[in-house]
């Protein structure tokens, strides 16, 4: 059946659009609030900036129910295994957003205990720069992530789960 489906690109494209529409409008963040950026993340979910308009106010506490890993703050070497484990516990499809300069490449801390960028341990989809980024910046990053999800092809992964496809 999968062979027959692969010969019907129009159907697959429609299915892609449908699935990505649902995925991008229902991103449930797993707020890994580590440091200062966590406060701005909470401010983004608060009344003035209101992430809930995009459907993202359900910050799940358990990684098993979340899709988006927002790494907000400095990742230290001691915390890195925990971050990796949480990322592994999240079910596919999942995305990661590195919020703040510390998560992007260590920020203002080139020291012995800080991991210089969370993309050394997890694959990051969107980088939001700032120290801390303003809530408007974070929302912009989330909207860019939504566009990225809209361009992805989940049907390829469903039909061929063994091939590692770059989204």
């Amino acid at each position: 059946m999968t062979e027959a489906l692969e010969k019907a690109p129009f159907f697959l494209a429609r299915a892609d659009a449908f699935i990505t529409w649902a995925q991008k409008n229902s991103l449930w963040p797993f707020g890994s609030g580590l440091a200062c950026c966590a406060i701005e993340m909470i401010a983004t979910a608060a009344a003035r900036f209101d992430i809930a308009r995009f459907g993202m106010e359900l910050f799940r506490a358990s990684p098993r129910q979340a899709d988006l890993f927002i790494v907000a703050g400095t990742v230290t070497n001691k915390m890195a295994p925990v971050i990796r484990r949480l990322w592994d516990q999240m079910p596919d499809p999942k995305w990661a957003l590195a919020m703040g300069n510390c998560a992007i490449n260590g920020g203002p801390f080139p020291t012995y205990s800080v991991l210089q960028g969370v993309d050394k341990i997890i694959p990051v989809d969107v980088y939001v720069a700032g120290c801390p980024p303003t809530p408007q910046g974070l929302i912009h990053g989330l909207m860019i992530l939504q566009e990225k999800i809209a361009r992805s092809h989940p049907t390829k992964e469903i039909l061929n789960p063994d091939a590692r496809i770059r989204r």
Partner: protein
Amino acid sequence: MPESAADRPELRQAFDALTGRFPDGVLSGGVEKGELSVRVGKDALASVLAFLKDEQGFNAVDDIIVLDNIRASGEGGKRFTVLYQLCRFPDFLRLRLAVDVCETEALDSAVPVYRSADWAEREAFDMFGVRFEGHPGLCRIYMPDEFEGHPLRKDFPLGGRDVASEAPRIYSRESDSLQALERQSPERGIRHSPTDTHPWNSAKGIKEIDLNMGPQHPSTHGVLRLKLAVDNEVVLRVVPVLGYLHRGMEKLWENLTYTQVVPLTDRLDYIAALSNNLGFVLAVETLAGIEVPRRARYIRVVLAELQRLASHLAWLGFMANDIGAMSVLLYSFEAREHVLDLFEEYCGARLTVHGIRIGGVPQDLDGTLVARIRTVLEGIPKHLADIRALLDENRIWKERTVGVGLIGAGDAVEYGLTGPSLRASGVPWDIRKDIPYSSYEEFDFDVPLGRNGDIYDRYIVRLEEIFQSIRIVRQALDGLPEGAISAKVPRVLKVPPGEVFHTIEAPKGVLGFYVKSNGTDKPERVKMKSPSFINLQSLEHMCKGNLFSDVVGILGSLDIVLGEIDK
């Protein structure tokens, strides 16, 4: 001459009493810049500390600072100087004891005398390798247990060494070793890592479960890990594990100029960034002898009190959210947004503000900004009235906060608790009143005190402090003097050699900065005495005997910030 540095006769009295009692132990000492520093011999340390506590009344250890004299040790001197900052309440005498010790020697631990020195000694051991004999559980506090080396030593590179023990241990999906560890003794529940050397065991029955809260946990306000021993929901022991946000700030500061250090202090207590700026800047100005103009001092007071307002509003939201009243988080953050707007208009940043610089402030408060501040101040009480209507007399709220997390006044001072948590236990200790800085003595405000020291009292004390802050800001705006907004500070600030320990009343407690300069433009050593670090030590005392669900509420009421605990 900065305000708080006046030679007080009590300092000389204390020094004379000390030299009279320990003629051989005391090697040298003197009063400088309003601080008493005494050098004692290593062997006399324990008895000196006991004498100071029992007979001279120095109730708490503010901080333990270690200096690495690597050059001196090369020339035959001792490698480390360990400084003990002691404080006497109620007359606020400060005393700094200095002890020299080399790498192979061990010092007597101060913990039998001063309970609040527990974690400070662990930090000294972790960062420098100074051993303390008699400490109830000397192990690393920030760095992981398997880390080799001591980061704050002068011969340890800033970027770390490229060795395996420093790389993060990333467990892969197939790693069974963690599960194997956890299957070792099923009758004791899930075990913790075997490298955990802190004494964990007293008399453990079979019914107990070891629980681990965090480091990833929605309610621990950051990456704090709590290990709990629970017996049917009743908490027996609480051991916090720190270091998940240790960024090596103190080492970084030794490589930056004084002006470059100031923006980094924002990231310590990130909810109240301006108070960290103020704390460090005041210490440097005391050391460098910079006189800050009066207008700048008033503007600093306005900013600091606005920041206290914002910090308490954030705390209120977080604590209410933990106890389940989610809407209060939204309401308090809405009120906080107005204050953050003011900061953004003042100097461009909402959170990590950097609005206080060495010598003064960067911008002036012009008429429109003053008017906007006044408008915001009028709106805050209305927001608070809404929140108080929801919570103050609410039966569920009272049931979860009254009588929970008790700490008495004596215990609070013993543990070194400071800030609103201490004042909620009835101890009237507020640095703004007792050792005023930055013109606080010219303002008229009250210091709210609690009675029982439970969560409800801490809640009420902080709410009242918000009103007092509004009062102070109004007075400062009304009486804003004319003048310059900054002293003339050279572009590359070289501070003459010396050391100072300066404290301020941050929203979380007493924030202290110890700065030692060696005449260059970079500090020799900066040590921060973080209020949340010391306050967290009393968590176990407050949680014992309460239920597991209360731990979250008690932690919230303590108002800790991991950025400041882990530095």
